């Protein structure tokens, strides 16, 4: 395809590649798969949050000879899960550091015998004092990790914050808190593992990052790379929740496979998945902000603390993204962000869509409304006076080289939501009405791809080959879990080569077949991996033109005919491309300065909320989301990403509370961990402004995480607009509304403020 031609496939609403299989119930998720002679595995977990393991006893009422039993002593390699650090054991050995930590594994041919067996393993502990909050960890009430409980810290400094306070017209302070959030993918975590002397370890599973699991298994089993194979099965939702945890579960199932000599399936039920697997990091973020008399930002002093749980998992990189998103989409000459991730004896927190940004965006965007109220400025106007524009620099002194169209996005959001007219109407109607309505806004960016030098370190390799059956195969380790990897990469390959969408298939995501194109995280698949596939397609065409007589203009038939000539001469038709960073990207990991991300996606969201002052329920009545994510590759999938992210964000704000008791999730059921249903979601209006990004596939930037960043602050800002009360913590449940609103004697007066 010449560059002057209009894309035919990219930008079109082509159907989901694996859609028909999913709609017919034929898609094979891990629990749908059986292996010959397969056994089933289960896990015995700690019932206390911290202590020494004194003994492990096996009740005599069970015939243990029927079972395979695995403890830490059975691990052939290192008893460590290799992620960023390697501090988390695969199985607790002598000590437990959080509730529901795995201690003993059991396998049996009859899965219905496992529950009784798990209950018949008796573990005696010598308890140690646990800590469960950020404050207890900061105070070092107990040292539970490293020398000081500090998992990671960053300091980002621009200008000189402390020189500003004396000359500021306004100084506004605020503290904001966010709770844990469960991914609640509808398919729980699950894997099947096999082991043989000849082939080593093979794992099939519901997972996001096959090479993360691969790396972890190498260490646990002390095997060479070619003796571990990880294959992704159809994955029923992930949202970050299958980024890190599958490394643990895969190790467990593989240990049982080694011990039993059988394939072993481990699929968690909902209660186990909720109790034992990762969630979004809780946070406490403090802002101190100086402004001049016109409401222009002079200084931002930001202190971030997150609860990382008992082991480091991905807390350092989550904290990094929180740090880099904490100043919001604003220009400020003096910025200091001090951030710390603290260890506690809670179940380790991990990756979740947004990865630190939703916490940071909640704080800054709630804070902007508090500032606006304090200095008597309209919250929209305050944001406009401080928005980033082309040529401005961010807190890391990254120059905005690509267009930044926040003003345009804001105009569109205000127009589409009829923001000012609605606000005026609600101000008029609220005093006489028990249901108070309000409008709230959030403005934010989300950095696409790995932070800083991350993509350089990943050094991803991806490509295409042509099968003898006449299909182009996409060779990537990037996984489909609903967000559309198969479809988007299929579109990109077809467009780049100039063949039909149906001429492209996906290679199985199998570490024995595909190259390591990096993890499926960080909104990187379309932009970064898609770009590799685009380049691989162009390279493939150039190769066939040079060596195999492919003409300037060609049909799909011509292309596959030339491919067969190439195969006859070279044995295969393959085109691989390795990551190349966009030019002018510089990042200083020590000073936290430079190009934090190769690209940013931008969004303005507007929430219309109704607060019932009789029932104390808050309901999102309507929602608008305007965003710039570069080129939209598939409008149906892109719209679905935005809507789904917003629904999760609404849950984060108003519904979803992880209730911990002694570090154990007490509401680990769908009955009492509540997510928005079909009756709870408002109409969601989605609008894209498209500015193609020069270094993303056909102009794409990241999209998947962006929409989750804004709903919580937009909704709480709308509740402030409706009630006059600026709530500073999520989740905001009816009981929280009750305690504040009931205390507020004159609501009518407050809402007029």
């Amino acid at each position: 395809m010449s560059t002057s031609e209009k894309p035919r496939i990219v930008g079109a609403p082509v159907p989901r590649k694996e859609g028909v299989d999913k709609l017919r119930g034929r898609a094979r998720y891990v629990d749908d798969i059986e292996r010959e002679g397969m056994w089933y595995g289960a896990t015995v977990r700690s019932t206390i949050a911290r202590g020494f393991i004194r003994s492990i006893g096996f009740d005599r009422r069970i015939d243990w000879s029927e079972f395979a039993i695995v403890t830490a002593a059975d691990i052939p390699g290192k008893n460590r899960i290799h992620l960023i650090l390697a501090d988390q054991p695969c199985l607790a050995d002598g000590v437990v550091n959080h509730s529901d930590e795995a201690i003993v594994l059991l396998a049996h041919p009859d899965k219905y015998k496992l529950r009784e067996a798990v209950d018949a393993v008796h573990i005696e502990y010598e308890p140690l004092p646990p800590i469960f909050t950020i404050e207890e960890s900061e105070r070092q009430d107990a040292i539970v990790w490293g020398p000081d409980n500090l998992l990671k810290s960053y300091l980002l400094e621009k200008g000189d914050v402390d020189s500003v306070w004396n000359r500021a017209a306004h100084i506004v302070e605020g503290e904001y808190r966010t709770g844990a959030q469960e991914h609640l993918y509808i398919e729980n975590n699950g894997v099947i593992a096999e082991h043989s002397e000849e082939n080593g370890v093979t794992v099939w599973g519901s997972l996001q990052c096959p090479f993360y699991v691969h790396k972890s298994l190498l260490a646990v089993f002390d095997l060479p790379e070619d003796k571990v194979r990880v294959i992704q099965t159809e994955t029923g939702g992930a949202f970050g929740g299958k980024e890190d945890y599958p490394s643990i579960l895969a190790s467990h199932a593989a240990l049982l496979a080694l011990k039993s000599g059988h394939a072993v399936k481990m699929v968690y039920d909902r209660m186990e998945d909720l109790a034992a697997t990762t969630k979004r990091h809780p946070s406490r973020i403090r802002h101190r902000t100086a402004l001049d008399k016109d409401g222009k930002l002079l200084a931002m002093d930001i202190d971030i603390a997150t609860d990382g749980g008992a082991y480091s998992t991905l807390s350092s990189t989550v904290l990094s993204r929180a740090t880099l998103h904490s100043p919001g989409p604003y220009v400020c000459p003096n910025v200091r962000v001090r951030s710390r991730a603290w260890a506690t004896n809670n179940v380790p927190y991990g990756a979740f869509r947004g990865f630190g940004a939703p916490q940071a965006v909640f704080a800054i965007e709630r804070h902007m409304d508090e500032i606006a109220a304090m200095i008597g400025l309209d919250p929209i106007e305050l944001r406009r006076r401080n928005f980033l524009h082309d040529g401005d620099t961010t807190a890391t002194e990254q120059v905005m080289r690509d267009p930044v169209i926040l003003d345009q996005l804001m105009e569109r959001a205000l127009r589409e939501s009829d923001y000012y007219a609605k606000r005026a109407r609600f101000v008029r109607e609220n005093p006489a009405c028990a249901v108070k309505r309000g409008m709230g806004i959030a403005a934010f960016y989300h950095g696409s791809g790995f932070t800083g030098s991350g993509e350089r370190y990943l050094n991803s390799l991806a490509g295409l080959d042509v099968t003898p059956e006449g299909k182009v195969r996409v060779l990537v380790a990037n996984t489909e879990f609903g967000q559309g990897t198969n479809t988007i990469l299929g579109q990109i390959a077809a467009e780049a080569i100039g063949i039909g969408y149906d001429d492209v298939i996906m290679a199985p995501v199998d570490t024995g077949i595909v190259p390591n194109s990096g993890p499926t995280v960080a909104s990187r698949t379309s932009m970064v991996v898609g770009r590799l596939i685009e380049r691989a397609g162009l390279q493939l065409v150039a190769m066939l033109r040079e060596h195999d007589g492919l003409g300037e203009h060609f049909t799909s038939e011509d292309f596959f005919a030339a491919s067969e000539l190439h195969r006859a001469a070279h044995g295969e038709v393959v085109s691989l491309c390795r990551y190349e960073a966009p030019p002018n990207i510089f990042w200083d990991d020590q000073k936290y300065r430079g190009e934090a991300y190769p690209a940013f996606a931008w969004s303005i969201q507007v929430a219309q909320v109704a607060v019932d002052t009789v029932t104390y329920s808050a309901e999102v009545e309507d929602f608008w989301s305007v965003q710039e994510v570069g080129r939209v590759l598939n409008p149906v999938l892109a719209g679905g990403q935005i809507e789904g992210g917003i629904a999760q964000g609404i849950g984060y704000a108003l519904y979803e509370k992880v209730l911990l008791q002694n570090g154990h999730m007490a509401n680990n059921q769908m009955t009492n961990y509540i997510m928005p249903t079909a009756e709870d979601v408002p109409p969601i209006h989605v609008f894209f402004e498209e500015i193609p990004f020069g270094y993303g596939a056909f102009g794409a930037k990241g999209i998947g995480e962006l929409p989750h960043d804004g709903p919580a602050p937009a909704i709480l800002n709308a509740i402030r607009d409706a009630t006059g009360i600026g709530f500073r913590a999520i989740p905001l449940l009816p009981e929280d509304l009750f305690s504040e609103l009931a205390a507020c004697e004159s609501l009518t007066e407050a809402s007029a403020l």
Partner: protein
Amino acid sequence: MSHRPDCRRNIRFTVNGENRNVQVLPMKRLLDVLREDLRLTGTKEGCGEGECGSCSVRMNGDLVNSCLVPVLQAEGANIQTVEGLGASGKLHPLQQAFLDCGGAQCGICTPGMLMAATQLLSINPHPSMAEIREGLAGNLCRCTGFIRIFDSVIAAAADPNHSSEQAGHAR
């Protein structure tokens, strides 16, 4: 290595128009009988307690959570699962609408959602938005935010093939 055979019972029912006969424990969940004994793995388990609706099937014209139905209750019943939707080579109008409108993402809630939508349209061929929301309220989807599922049901209800499909599945 299985349960004592003396506890098992012979249970007969119809699944997707075929007579089936299974020897199982009478309290075994219908979900497990479908998935394990009949290898109809289209029906999914999400929560095991009737909250998420992933295991929804139609039984004698009602929508049920098959994780809450002991198979003995299905004796003689007429059951429809996702595998019974659409003809070979041709999708059911609801399946086609979910494909066109983006009603399925990760796909794990999709079989249950399709059964709930089939049930809704069978009793109310042209539902309002409020009726669609109510009809699908027992089926959780974590990917889509439901919006494109609503669009899919509306599109299927407007599909001229939809009414003939309904006639074909009349009970």
